[in-house]
Protein backbone atom coordinates (compact mmCIF):
# COMPACT_ATOMS: atom_id res chain seq x y z
CA UNK A 1 0.00 0.00 0.00
CA UNK A 2 1.17 3.53 -0.63
CA UNK A 3 1.81 5.93 2.25
CA UNK A 4 -1.19 8.15 1.53
CA UNK A 5 -3.58 5.19 1.53
CA UNK A 6 -2.10 3.82 4.76
CA UNK A 7 -2.42 7.19 6.51
CA UNK A 8 -6.02 7.67 5.35
CA UNK A 9 -6.98 4.13 6.33
CA UNK A 10 -5.45 4.47 9.80
CA UNK A 11 -6.90 7.94 10.41
CA UNK A 12 -10.40 6.93 9.28
CA UNK A 13 -10.30 3.77 11.39
CA UNK A 14 -9.12 5.80 14.37
CA UNK A 15 -11.86 8.39 13.96
CA UNK A 16 -14.76 6.03 13.29
CA UNK A 17 -13.82 3.11 15.53
CA UNK A 18 -12.36 5.53 18.06
CA UNK A 19 -15.66 7.42 18.02
CA UNK A 20 -17.46 4.16 18.66
CA UNK A 21 -15.09 3.30 21.52
CA UNK A 22 -15.49 6.72 23.14
CA UNK A 23 -19.29 6.54 22.75
CA UNK A 24 -19.42 3.11 24.39
CA UNK A 25 -17.10 4.25 27.20
CA UNK A 26 -19.24 7.33 27.75
CA UNK A 27 -22.39 5.24 27.85
CA UNK A 28 -20.89 2.70 30.25
CA UNK A 29 -19.70 5.40 32.63
CA UNK A 30 -23.18 7.01 32.70
CA UNK A 31 -25.71 4.58 31.23
CA UNK A 32 -28.75 6.53 32.40
CA UNK A 33 -29.55 9.78 34.05
CA UNK A 34 -29.94 9.06 37.76
CA UNK A 35 -30.87 12.40 39.28
CA UNK A 36 -34.15 14.01 38.41
CA UNK A 37 -35.46 17.43 39.38
CA UNK A 38 -38.09 17.55 42.06
CA UNK A 39 -41.59 17.12 40.73
CA UNK A 40 -40.58 14.82 37.86
CA UNK A 41 -41.83 11.73 39.66
CA UNK A 42 -44.24 10.53 36.97
CA UNK A 43 -44.23 6.76 36.57
CA UNK A 44 -42.11 5.28 33.77
CA UNK A 45 -44.61 2.64 32.81
CA UNK A 46 -47.35 4.91 31.50
CA UNK A 47 -48.28 5.36 27.89
Amino acid at each position, binding site marked *: *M*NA*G*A*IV*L*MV*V*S*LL*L*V*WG*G*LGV*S*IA*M*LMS*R*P*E*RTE*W*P*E*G*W*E*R*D*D*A*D*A
Partner: protein
Amino acid sequence: MSTQTSPETRPREEWTGQVGFILSAIGSAVGLGNIWRFPGVAYENGGGAFLVPYLVALVTAGIPILYLDYAIGHRFRGSAPLAFRRISRWFETLGWYQVAICFAIAVYYTAVIAWALSFFWYSFGLRWGDDTTTFFLVDYLQVADVGGEDPWFTLDFVPAVLIPLVLVWVVTIVVLAAGVARGVQRVNIVFMPLLLVAFGVLVVRSLFLPGAADGLNALFTPEWSALRNADVWIAAYGQIFFSLSIAFGIMITYASYRRRRGNLTSPGLVVAFANSGFELFAGIGVFASLGFLAGQQAVAVGDLEGITGPILSFVTFPALVSQMPAGSLFGALFFGSLVMAGFTSLVSILQVVSAAFQEKLSISRRQAALGIGGLAGVISVLGFSTTTGLIALDTLDNWANNVGIVSSAVIMCVLVIWVGRRGGELRFHLNSVSTFQVGSWWTFCVGILAPLVLGWMLVSRIQTLLVEGYEGYAPWYTGLVGWGAIAAFVVFAVLLTLAPWRSPVGAYDAWPRYDKEHAPGAREGKGGPA
Protein backbone atom coordinates in the same frame (compact mmCIF):
# COMPACT_ATOMS: atom_id res chain seq x y z
CA MET B 1 -52.59 -7.25 24.14
CA SER B 2 -56.15 -5.97 24.18
CA THR B 3 -57.70 -5.28 20.82
CA GLN B 4 -59.98 -2.47 21.92
CA THR B 5 -57.87 -0.18 24.05
CA SER B 6 -56.89 3.26 22.86
CA PRO B 7 -53.36 4.53 22.26
CA GLU B 8 -53.93 6.69 25.34
CA THR B 9 -54.49 3.81 27.73
CA ARG B 10 -52.80 0.79 26.23
CA PRO B 11 -49.53 -0.15 27.98
CA ARG B 12 -46.82 0.47 25.44
CA GLU B 13 -44.45 -2.31 24.47
CA GLU B 14 -40.87 -1.64 25.58
CA TRP B 15 -37.35 -2.83 24.89
CA THR B 16 -36.18 -4.89 27.85
CA GLY B 17 -33.17 -2.63 28.30
CA GLN B 18 -30.57 -0.36 26.79
CA VAL B 19 -28.65 -3.15 25.03
CA GLY B 20 -31.80 -4.40 23.29
CA PHE B 21 -32.63 -0.90 22.08
CA ILE B 22 -29.10 -0.20 20.85
CA LEU B 23 -28.65 -3.54 19.09
CA SER B 24 -32.06 -3.21 17.43
CA ALA B 25 -31.26 0.31 16.24
CA ILE B 26 -27.87 -0.85 14.93
CA GLY B 27 -29.60 -3.83 13.31
CA SER B 28 -31.90 -1.45 11.51
CA ALA B 29 -29.13 0.90 10.40
CA VAL B 30 -26.69 -1.80 9.31
CA GLY B 31 -28.25 -3.20 6.16
CA LEU B 32 -27.44 -4.17 2.62
CA GLY B 33 -26.33 -0.62 1.77
CA ASN B 34 -23.48 -0.78 4.27
CA ILE B 35 -22.04 -3.76 2.44
CA TRP B 36 -22.73 -2.98 -1.19
CA ARG B 37 -23.17 0.78 -1.36
CA PHE B 38 -20.56 2.45 0.85
CA PRO B 39 -17.39 0.90 -0.67
CA GLY B 40 -18.38 1.84 -4.23
CA VAL B 41 -19.53 5.34 -3.30
CA ALA B 42 -16.30 6.02 -1.40
CA TYR B 43 -14.18 4.72 -4.26
CA GLU B 44 -16.00 6.79 -6.88
CA ASN B 45 -15.92 9.99 -4.82
CA GLY B 46 -12.31 10.66 -3.98
CA GLY B 47 -11.24 7.42 -2.27
CA GLY B 48 -9.61 8.24 1.05
CA ALA B 49 -10.51 11.91 0.70
CA PHE B 50 -14.19 10.92 0.75
CA LEU B 51 -13.83 10.25 4.47
CA VAL B 52 -13.64 14.01 5.11
CA PRO B 53 -17.12 14.90 3.77
CA TYR B 54 -18.40 11.57 5.07
CA LEU B 55 -17.46 12.39 8.68
CA VAL B 56 -18.68 15.99 8.33
CA ALA B 57 -22.02 14.62 7.06
CA LEU B 58 -22.18 12.16 9.94
CA VAL B 59 -21.79 14.90 12.54
CA THR B 60 -23.87 17.60 10.85
CA ALA B 61 -26.77 15.57 9.38
CA GLY B 62 -26.68 11.90 10.34
CA ILE B 63 -26.49 12.23 14.12
CA PRO B 64 -28.71 15.36 14.33
CA ILE B 65 -31.55 13.81 12.29
CA LEU B 66 -31.18 10.57 14.25
CA TYR B 67 -31.65 12.62 17.43
CA LEU B 68 -34.65 14.39 15.88
CA ASP B 69 -36.28 11.01 15.17
CA TYR B 70 -35.46 9.81 18.69
CA ALA B 71 -36.85 12.96 20.29
CA ILE B 72 -40.13 12.83 18.33
CA GLY B 73 -40.71 9.13 18.97
CA HIS B 74 -39.71 9.22 22.62
CA ARG B 75 -41.50 12.42 23.61
CA PHE B 76 -44.72 11.73 21.72
CA ARG B 77 -44.62 7.96 22.29
CA GLY B 78 -46.19 6.63 19.17
CA SER B 79 -45.63 5.26 15.72
CA ALA B 80 -44.86 7.97 13.15
CA PRO B 81 -48.53 8.96 12.46
CA LEU B 82 -49.48 9.12 16.13
CA ALA B 83 -46.29 10.91 17.19
CA PHE B 84 -46.69 13.56 14.46
CA ARG B 85 -50.40 13.91 15.24
CA ARG B 86 -49.49 14.64 18.84
CA ILE B 87 -47.33 17.51 17.61
CA SER B 88 -50.06 18.88 15.35
CA ARG B 89 -53.26 17.36 13.95
CA TRP B 90 -52.29 17.61 10.26
CA PHE B 91 -48.71 16.48 10.74
CA GLU B 92 -50.21 12.98 10.90
CA THR B 93 -50.11 12.99 7.08
CA LEU B 94 -46.30 13.03 7.19
CA GLY B 95 -46.40 9.98 9.46
CA TRP B 96 -48.55 8.05 6.97
CA TYR B 97 -46.28 9.18 4.12
CA GLN B 98 -43.39 7.57 6.01
CA VAL B 99 -45.49 4.44 6.62
CA ALA B 100 -46.22 4.21 2.88
CA ILE B 101 -42.52 4.50 2.08
CA CYS B 102 -41.73 1.71 4.54
CA PHE B 103 -44.43 -0.53 3.06
CA ALA B 104 -43.08 0.00 -0.47
CA ILE B 105 -39.49 -0.63 0.58
CA ALA B 106 -40.46 -3.78 2.49
CA VAL B 107 -42.13 -5.40 -0.52
CA TYR B 108 -38.97 -5.27 -2.63
CA TYR B 109 -36.33 -5.45 0.11
CA THR B 110 -37.67 -8.89 0.99
CA ALA B 111 -36.92 -10.05 -2.54
CA VAL B 112 -33.26 -9.07 -2.17
CA ILE B 113 -33.06 -11.02 1.09
CA ALA B 114 -34.62 -13.98 -0.77
CA TRP B 115 -31.88 -13.72 -3.43
CA ALA B 116 -29.23 -13.68 -0.70
CA LEU B 117 -30.84 -16.72 0.91
CA SER B 118 -30.72 -18.57 -2.43
CA PHE B 119 -27.08 -17.63 -2.97
CA PHE B 120 -26.27 -18.73 0.57
CA TRP B 121 -27.59 -22.14 -0.47
CA TYR B 122 -25.77 -22.03 -3.83
CA SER B 123 -22.50 -21.28 -2.03
CA PHE B 124 -22.28 -24.91 -0.98
CA GLY B 125 -20.99 -26.27 -4.25
CA LEU B 126 -20.41 -22.90 -5.91
CA ARG B 127 -23.42 -23.52 -8.12
CA TRP B 128 -23.09 -20.26 -10.04
CA GLY B 129 -20.24 -21.65 -12.19
CA ASP B 130 -17.78 -19.50 -14.13
CA ASP B 131 -20.14 -17.02 -15.79
CA THR B 132 -21.73 -15.37 -12.77
CA THR B 133 -23.47 -12.63 -14.78
CA THR B 134 -25.37 -15.16 -16.85
CA PHE B 135 -26.11 -17.23 -13.79
CA PHE B 136 -27.62 -14.28 -11.86
CA LEU B 137 -29.58 -12.58 -14.62
CA VAL B 138 -30.52 -15.48 -16.90
CA ASP B 139 -30.40 -18.73 -14.95
CA TYR B 140 -31.51 -17.41 -11.55
CA LEU B 141 -33.70 -14.33 -12.09
CA GLN B 142 -34.70 -15.27 -15.67
CA VAL B 143 -34.95 -11.53 -16.40
CA ALA B 144 -37.44 -10.77 -19.16
CA ASP B 145 -36.37 -8.92 -22.28
CA VAL B 146 -38.47 -5.86 -21.46
CA GLY B 147 -38.70 -3.34 -24.24
CA GLY B 148 -37.87 -6.18 -26.62
CA GLU B 149 -39.86 -9.39 -26.96
CA ASP B 150 -41.35 -9.37 -23.47
CA PRO B 151 -43.85 -7.05 -21.77
CA TRP B 152 -42.82 -4.79 -18.85
CA PHE B 153 -45.02 -6.78 -16.46
CA THR B 154 -45.38 -10.53 -16.42
CA LEU B 155 -46.81 -13.08 -14.04
CA ASP B 156 -44.20 -15.65 -15.03
CA PHE B 157 -43.08 -16.72 -11.57
CA VAL B 158 -39.51 -17.80 -10.94
CA PRO B 159 -39.65 -20.66 -8.41
CA ALA B 160 -36.05 -20.13 -7.27
CA VAL B 161 -37.05 -16.62 -6.11
CA LEU B 162 -40.62 -17.39 -5.11
CA ILE B 163 -39.82 -20.14 -2.59
CA PRO B 164 -37.24 -18.23 -0.49
CA LEU B 165 -39.38 -15.10 -0.78
CA VAL B 166 -42.38 -16.84 0.77
CA LEU B 167 -40.09 -18.25 3.46
CA VAL B 168 -38.75 -14.78 4.33
CA TRP B 169 -42.31 -13.43 4.60
CA VAL B 170 -43.42 -16.26 6.88
CA VAL B 171 -40.47 -15.71 9.24
CA THR B 172 -41.00 -11.93 9.17
CA ILE B 173 -44.67 -12.26 10.11
CA VAL B 174 -43.76 -14.59 12.99
CA VAL B 175 -41.17 -12.09 14.28
CA LEU B 176 -43.56 -9.14 14.05
CA ALA B 177 -46.35 -11.09 15.72
CA ALA B 178 -44.04 -11.98 18.60
CA GLY B 179 -43.74 -8.27 19.47
CA VAL B 180 -41.00 -5.80 20.20
CA ALA B 181 -39.20 -7.56 23.03
CA ARG B 182 -39.80 -11.20 22.12
CA GLY B 183 -39.63 -10.76 18.35
CA VAL B 184 -37.73 -7.75 17.01
CA GLN B 185 -35.29 -7.41 19.90
CA ARG B 186 -34.57 -11.13 20.13
CA VAL B 187 -33.76 -11.35 16.40
CA ASN B 188 -31.31 -8.47 16.76
CA ILE B 189 -29.67 -9.84 19.88
CA VAL B 190 -28.96 -13.09 18.03
CA PHE B 191 -28.19 -11.76 14.54
CA MET B 192 -26.05 -8.71 15.29
CA PRO B 193 -23.22 -10.53 17.10
CA LEU B 194 -23.42 -13.33 14.52
CA LEU B 195 -23.17 -10.78 11.70
CA LEU B 196 -20.13 -9.18 13.28
CA VAL B 197 -18.38 -12.53 13.69
CA ALA B 198 -19.28 -13.82 10.20
CA PHE B 199 -18.31 -10.60 8.45
CA GLY B 200 -15.24 -10.24 10.66
CA VAL B 201 -13.94 -13.65 9.55
CA LEU B 202 -14.56 -12.63 5.95
CA VAL B 203 -12.75 -9.30 6.28
CA VAL B 204 -9.75 -10.77 8.08
CA ARG B 205 -9.47 -13.51 5.46
CA SER B 206 -9.71 -10.98 2.64
CA LEU B 207 -6.77 -9.02 4.05
CA PHE B 208 -4.49 -12.01 3.52
CA LEU B 209 -5.47 -12.63 -0.10
CA PRO B 210 -2.86 -11.83 -2.75
CA GLY B 211 -3.65 -8.41 -4.24
CA ALA B 212 -5.51 -7.17 -1.14
CA ALA B 213 -3.13 -4.21 -0.82
CA ASP B 214 -3.97 -3.12 -4.37
CA GLY B 215 -7.65 -3.08 -3.48
CA LEU B 216 -7.02 -1.04 -0.33
CA ASN B 217 -4.84 1.35 -2.29
CA ALA B 218 -7.73 1.91 -4.68
CA LEU B 219 -10.14 2.56 -1.83
CA PHE B 220 -8.00 4.76 0.40
CA THR B 221 -5.61 6.65 -1.88
CA PRO B 222 -6.88 10.21 -1.46
CA GLU B 223 -7.83 12.34 -4.41
CA TRP B 224 -7.96 15.69 -2.61
CA SER B 225 -9.22 17.64 -5.61
CA ALA B 226 -12.52 15.74 -5.22
CA LEU B 227 -13.24 17.84 -2.12
CA ARG B 228 -13.80 20.85 -4.39
CA ASN B 229 -16.57 18.98 -6.17
CA ALA B 230 -20.04 19.65 -4.72
CA ASP B 231 -21.29 16.28 -6.00
CA VAL B 232 -18.80 14.50 -3.73
CA TRP B 233 -20.24 16.29 -0.70
CA ILE B 234 -23.76 15.47 -1.79
CA ALA B 235 -22.73 11.82 -2.21
CA ALA B 236 -21.36 11.84 1.35
CA TYR B 237 -24.55 13.33 2.79
CA GLY B 238 -26.56 10.82 0.74
CA GLN B 239 -24.51 7.87 2.00
CA ILE B 240 -24.84 8.88 5.66
CA PHE B 241 -28.51 9.66 5.24
CA PHE B 242 -29.52 6.40 3.50
CA SER B 243 -27.28 4.31 5.71
CA LEU B 244 -28.64 5.37 9.11
CA SER B 245 -32.33 4.47 8.58
CA ILE B 246 -33.40 8.01 9.45
CA ALA B 247 -36.36 10.19 8.51
CA PHE B 248 -38.81 7.52 7.42
CA GLY B 249 -40.32 6.45 10.68
CA ILE B 250 -38.05 3.65 11.88
CA MET B 251 -36.14 5.51 14.56
CA ILE B 252 -39.32 7.34 15.65
CA THR B 253 -41.03 3.98 16.17
CA TYR B 254 -38.01 2.39 17.87
CA ALA B 255 -37.53 5.34 20.24
CA SER B 256 -41.20 5.17 21.22
CA TYR B 257 -40.52 1.74 22.77
CA ARG B 258 -37.76 3.20 24.95
CA ARG B 259 -38.84 3.65 28.56
CA ARG B 260 -39.75 7.17 29.64
CA ARG B 261 -36.54 7.84 31.52
CA GLY B 262 -34.32 6.13 28.96
CA ASN B 263 -31.10 7.76 27.80
CA LEU B 264 -31.30 8.79 24.12
CA THR B 265 -28.26 10.73 22.97
CA SER B 266 -25.40 8.50 24.16
CA PRO B 267 -27.01 5.35 22.71
CA GLY B 268 -27.56 7.41 19.54
CA LEU B 269 -23.83 8.08 19.29
CA VAL B 270 -23.11 4.35 19.69
CA VAL B 271 -25.64 3.52 16.95
CA ALA B 272 -24.27 6.14 14.54
CA PHE B 273 -20.60 5.23 15.03
CA ALA B 274 -21.34 1.48 14.98
CA ASN B 275 -23.11 1.92 11.64
CA SER B 276 -20.21 3.88 10.17
CA GLY B 277 -17.69 1.50 11.77
CA PHE B 278 -19.41 -1.43 10.11
CA GLU B 279 -19.48 0.15 6.69
CA LEU B 280 -15.85 1.14 6.89
CA PHE B 281 -15.09 -2.44 7.92
CA ALA B 282 -17.17 -3.69 4.97
CA GLY B 283 -15.32 -1.30 2.65
CA ILE B 284 -11.98 -2.77 3.70
CA GLY B 285 -13.24 -6.33 3.20
CA VAL B 286 -14.88 -5.63 -0.16
CA PHE B 287 -11.91 -3.75 -1.65
CA ALA B 288 -9.31 -6.19 -0.34
CA SER B 289 -11.34 -8.91 -2.07
CA LEU B 290 -11.69 -6.84 -5.26
CA GLY B 291 -7.91 -6.41 -5.26
CA PHE B 292 -7.58 -10.18 -5.26
CA LEU B 293 -10.14 -10.55 -8.08
CA ALA B 294 -8.39 -7.88 -10.16
CA GLY B 295 -5.12 -9.77 -9.73
CA GLN B 296 -6.75 -13.02 -10.85
CA GLN B 297 -8.14 -11.30 -13.95
CA ALA B 298 -4.88 -9.37 -14.56
CA VAL B 299 -6.64 -6.00 -14.63
CA ALA B 300 -6.47 -2.92 -12.42
CA VAL B 301 -9.04 -2.61 -9.62
CA GLY B 302 -10.45 0.47 -11.38
CA ASP B 303 -11.11 -1.60 -14.49
CA LEU B 304 -13.32 -4.10 -12.68
CA GLU B 305 -17.02 -3.85 -13.45
CA GLY B 306 -19.78 -4.20 -10.87
CA ILE B 307 -18.18 -2.76 -7.74
CA THR B 308 -21.40 -1.47 -6.21
CA GLY B 309 -25.04 -2.47 -5.71
CA PRO B 310 -26.65 -5.86 -6.30
CA ILE B 311 -24.21 -6.63 -9.12
CA LEU B 312 -21.32 -6.44 -6.60
CA SER B 313 -23.06 -8.93 -4.35
CA PHE B 314 -24.61 -11.33 -6.83
CA VAL B 315 -22.21 -11.21 -9.77
CA THR B 316 -18.79 -9.93 -8.70
CA PHE B 317 -18.65 -11.61 -5.29
CA PRO B 318 -19.64 -15.08 -6.55
CA ALA B 319 -16.89 -14.77 -9.20
CA LEU B 320 -14.46 -13.80 -6.47
CA VAL B 321 -15.53 -16.56 -4.10
CA SER B 322 -15.08 -19.15 -6.85
CA GLN B 323 -11.40 -18.24 -7.03
CA MET B 324 -10.77 -18.21 -3.29
CA PRO B 325 -9.44 -21.19 -1.38
CA ALA B 326 -12.36 -22.62 0.67
CA GLY B 327 -14.69 -20.55 -1.50
CA SER B 328 -17.86 -22.33 -0.35
CA LEU B 329 -17.23 -21.33 3.24
CA PHE B 330 -16.59 -17.69 2.39
CA GLY B 331 -19.53 -17.59 0.01
CA ALA B 332 -21.77 -18.87 2.79
CA LEU B 333 -20.34 -16.32 5.22
CA PHE B 334 -20.88 -13.46 2.77
CA PHE B 335 -24.43 -14.34 1.77
CA GLY B 336 -25.29 -15.33 5.35
CA SER B 337 -24.13 -11.85 6.39
CA LEU B 338 -26.32 -10.28 3.70
CA VAL B 339 -29.33 -12.23 4.94
CA MET B 340 -28.76 -11.21 8.57
CA ALA B 341 -28.04 -7.55 7.78
CA GLY B 342 -31.06 -7.37 5.49
CA PHE B 343 -33.45 -9.19 7.79
CA THR B 344 -32.77 -7.02 10.84
CA SER B 345 -33.41 -3.96 8.68
CA LEU B 346 -36.55 -5.49 7.19
CA VAL B 347 -38.20 -6.14 10.56
CA SER B 348 -37.53 -2.52 11.55
CA ILE B 349 -39.12 -1.25 8.33
CA LEU B 350 -42.23 -3.39 8.81
CA GLN B 351 -42.49 -2.54 12.51
CA VAL B 352 -43.17 1.05 11.38
CA VAL B 353 -46.18 -0.14 9.37
CA SER B 354 -47.38 -2.61 11.98
CA ALA B 355 -47.19 -0.11 14.87
CA ALA B 356 -49.04 2.56 12.87
CA PHE B 357 -51.98 0.29 12.05
CA GLN B 358 -52.09 -1.18 15.56
CA GLU B 359 -52.64 2.32 16.90
CA LYS B 360 -54.94 3.67 14.18
CA LEU B 361 -57.22 0.63 14.05
CA SER B 362 -56.83 -0.50 17.68
CA ILE B 363 -55.80 -3.97 16.60
CA SER B 364 -53.41 -6.40 18.25
CA ARG B 365 -49.87 -6.86 17.03
CA ARG B 366 -50.79 -10.36 15.78
CA GLN B 367 -53.65 -8.99 13.71
CA ALA B 368 -51.36 -6.27 12.36
CA ALA B 369 -48.55 -8.72 11.58
CA LEU B 370 -50.87 -11.11 9.77
CA GLY B 371 -52.85 -8.44 7.94
CA ILE B 372 -49.97 -6.22 6.89
CA GLY B 373 -47.47 -9.03 6.43
CA GLY B 374 -50.01 -11.00 4.41
CA LEU B 375 -50.90 -8.08 2.13
CA ALA B 376 -47.28 -7.02 1.68
CA GLY B 377 -46.29 -10.64 1.06
CA VAL B 378 -48.84 -11.04 -1.73
CA ILE B 379 -47.75 -7.77 -3.41
CA SER B 380 -44.12 -8.76 -2.98
CA VAL B 381 -44.67 -12.16 -4.61
CA LEU B 382 -46.73 -10.73 -7.48
CA GLY B 383 -44.31 -7.91 -8.18
CA PHE B 384 -40.88 -9.30 -7.45
CA SER B 385 -40.76 -13.07 -7.89
CA THR B 386 -41.52 -12.84 -11.60
CA THR B 387 -39.28 -12.40 -14.62
CA THR B 388 -39.88 -8.61 -14.51
CA GLY B 389 -39.17 -8.35 -10.77
CA LEU B 390 -35.64 -6.96 -11.12
CA ILE B 391 -36.74 -3.99 -13.24
CA ALA B 392 -39.66 -3.21 -10.92
CA LEU B 393 -37.36 -3.47 -7.91
CA ASP B 394 -34.71 -1.22 -9.40
CA THR B 395 -37.29 1.43 -10.32
CA LEU B 396 -39.22 1.41 -7.05
CA ASP B 397 -35.99 1.43 -5.03
CA ASN B 398 -34.72 4.50 -6.86
CA TRP B 399 -37.91 6.52 -6.35
CA ALA B 400 -38.64 5.37 -2.79
CA ASN B 401 -35.14 6.33 -1.65
CA ASN B 402 -34.12 9.31 -3.73
CA VAL B 403 -37.51 11.00 -3.85
CA GLY B 404 -39.58 9.42 -1.08
CA ILE B 405 -37.17 9.32 1.86
CA VAL B 406 -35.32 12.53 0.99
CA SER B 407 -38.58 14.46 0.64
CA SER B 408 -39.78 12.96 3.92
CA ALA B 409 -36.63 14.25 5.65
CA VAL B 410 -36.92 17.75 4.23
CA ILE B 411 -40.63 17.98 5.09
CA MET B 412 -40.02 16.62 8.59
CA CYS B 413 -37.30 19.16 9.37
CA VAL B 414 -39.34 22.06 7.98
CA LEU B 415 -42.63 21.06 9.63
CA VAL B 416 -41.24 20.23 13.05
CA ILE B 417 -38.67 23.01 13.37
CA TRP B 418 -40.21 25.87 11.33
CA VAL B 419 -43.96 25.29 11.16
CA GLY B 420 -44.57 23.56 14.48
CA ARG B 421 -41.65 25.40 16.12
CA ARG B 422 -40.84 22.40 18.28
CA GLY B 423 -37.04 22.58 18.01
CA GLY B 424 -36.62 24.02 21.50
CA GLU B 425 -39.00 21.52 23.05
CA LEU B 426 -37.36 18.53 21.40
CA ARG B 427 -33.89 19.73 22.39
CA PHE B 428 -35.18 20.19 25.93
CA HIS B 429 -36.54 16.63 25.82
CA LEU B 430 -33.25 15.14 24.60
CA ASN B 431 -31.33 16.97 27.31
CA SER B 432 -33.87 16.15 30.01
CA VAL B 433 -33.60 12.37 29.66
CA SER B 434 -30.04 11.96 28.34
CA THR B 435 -26.55 12.03 29.78
CA PHE B 436 -24.95 13.69 26.73
CA GLN B 437 -26.35 17.19 26.23
CA VAL B 438 -27.01 18.70 22.82
CA GLY B 439 -26.43 22.39 22.21
CA SER B 440 -27.92 24.93 19.84
CA TRP B 441 -25.77 23.38 17.06
CA TRP B 442 -28.35 20.60 16.92
CA THR B 443 -31.20 23.01 16.12
CA PHE B 444 -29.03 24.65 13.44
CA CYS B 445 -28.23 21.27 11.85
CA VAL B 446 -31.82 19.94 11.75
CA GLY B 447 -33.42 23.33 11.08
CA ILE B 448 -31.10 24.81 8.47
CA LEU B 449 -28.15 22.74 7.30
CA ALA B 450 -29.78 19.32 6.78
CA PRO B 451 -32.94 20.58 5.00
CA LEU B 452 -30.81 22.79 2.74
CA VAL B 453 -28.41 20.02 1.73
CA LEU B 454 -31.12 17.38 1.44
CA GLY B 455 -33.44 19.81 -0.36
CA TRP B 456 -30.72 20.51 -2.91
CA MET B 457 -30.18 16.75 -3.31
CA LEU B 458 -33.90 16.24 -3.84
CA VAL B 459 -34.31 19.00 -6.41
CA SER B 460 -31.28 17.94 -8.42
CA ARG B 461 -32.38 14.31 -8.36
CA ILE B 462 -35.92 15.12 -9.48
CA GLN B 463 -34.53 17.33 -12.24
CA THR B 464 -32.26 14.52 -13.47
CA LEU B 465 -35.08 11.98 -13.42
CA LEU B 466 -37.41 14.31 -15.32
CA VAL B 467 -34.85 15.30 -17.95
CA GLU B 468 -32.84 12.12 -18.42
CA GLY B 469 -35.23 9.41 -17.25
CA TYR B 470 -33.87 6.37 -15.46
CA GLU B 471 -31.68 3.57 -16.79
CA GLY B 472 -33.21 3.91 -20.25
CA TYR B 473 -36.54 2.52 -19.03
CA ALA B 474 -39.68 3.53 -20.95
CA PRO B 475 -41.03 6.88 -19.71
CA TRP B 476 -44.54 5.44 -19.23
CA TYR B 477 -43.02 2.70 -17.06
CA THR B 478 -41.03 5.02 -14.77
CA GLY B 479 -44.09 7.28 -14.69
CA LEU B 480 -46.25 4.41 -13.50
CA VAL B 481 -43.90 2.58 -11.13
CA GLY B 482 -41.66 5.48 -10.02
CA TRP B 483 -43.70 8.69 -10.00
CA GLY B 484 -46.88 6.64 -9.59
CA ALA B 485 -45.49 5.21 -6.36
CA ILE B 486 -44.77 8.69 -4.99
CA ALA B 487 -48.29 9.82 -5.93
CA ALA B 488 -49.70 6.69 -4.27
CA PHE B 489 -47.73 7.49 -1.06
CA VAL B 490 -49.29 10.95 -0.96
CA VAL B 491 -52.84 9.74 -1.65
CA PHE B 492 -52.44 6.97 0.95
CA ALA B 493 -51.15 9.49 3.51
CA VAL B 494 -54.04 11.89 2.98
CA LEU B 495 -56.69 9.15 3.05
CA LEU B 496 -55.30 7.58 6.22
CA THR B 497 -55.16 10.98 7.89
CA LEU B 498 -58.81 11.57 7.02
CA ALA B 499 -59.83 8.11 8.26
CA PRO B 500 -61.09 8.18 11.84
CA TRP B 501 -59.09 6.65 14.68
CA ARG B 502 -60.82 3.52 15.95
CA SER B 503 -60.41 4.83 19.50
CA PRO B 504 -60.32 8.47 20.56
CA VAL B 505 -56.99 10.28 20.46
CA GLY B 506 -57.30 13.17 22.87
CA ALA B 507 -54.91 15.86 23.96
CA TYR B 508 -51.53 14.41 24.77
CA ASP B 509 -49.62 15.26 27.91
CA ALA B 510 -45.94 15.00 27.00
CA TRP B 511 -43.38 14.29 29.71
CA PRO B 512 -41.40 16.10 31.00
CA ARG B 513 -43.54 19.21 30.67
CA TYR B 514 -41.93 21.89 28.56
CA ASP B 515 -42.29 25.42 29.74
CA LYS B 516 -40.79 27.79 27.17
CA GLU B 517 -40.31 30.50 29.76
CA HIS B 518 -38.33 28.34 32.10
CA ALA B 519 -36.92 25.73 29.75
CA PRO B 520 -33.22 26.47 30.30
CA GLY B 521 -33.67 26.11 34.05
CA ALA B 522 -36.15 23.28 33.99
CA ARG B 523 -33.47 20.68 34.51
CA GLU B 524 -32.52 22.40 37.75
CA GLY B 525 -36.01 21.85 39.07
CA LYS B 526 -37.93 24.83 37.78
CA GLY B 527 -40.06 22.75 35.42
CA GLY B 528 -43.31 21.54 36.92
CA PRO B 529 -44.49 17.97 37.01
CA ALA B 530 -46.48 16.68 34.08
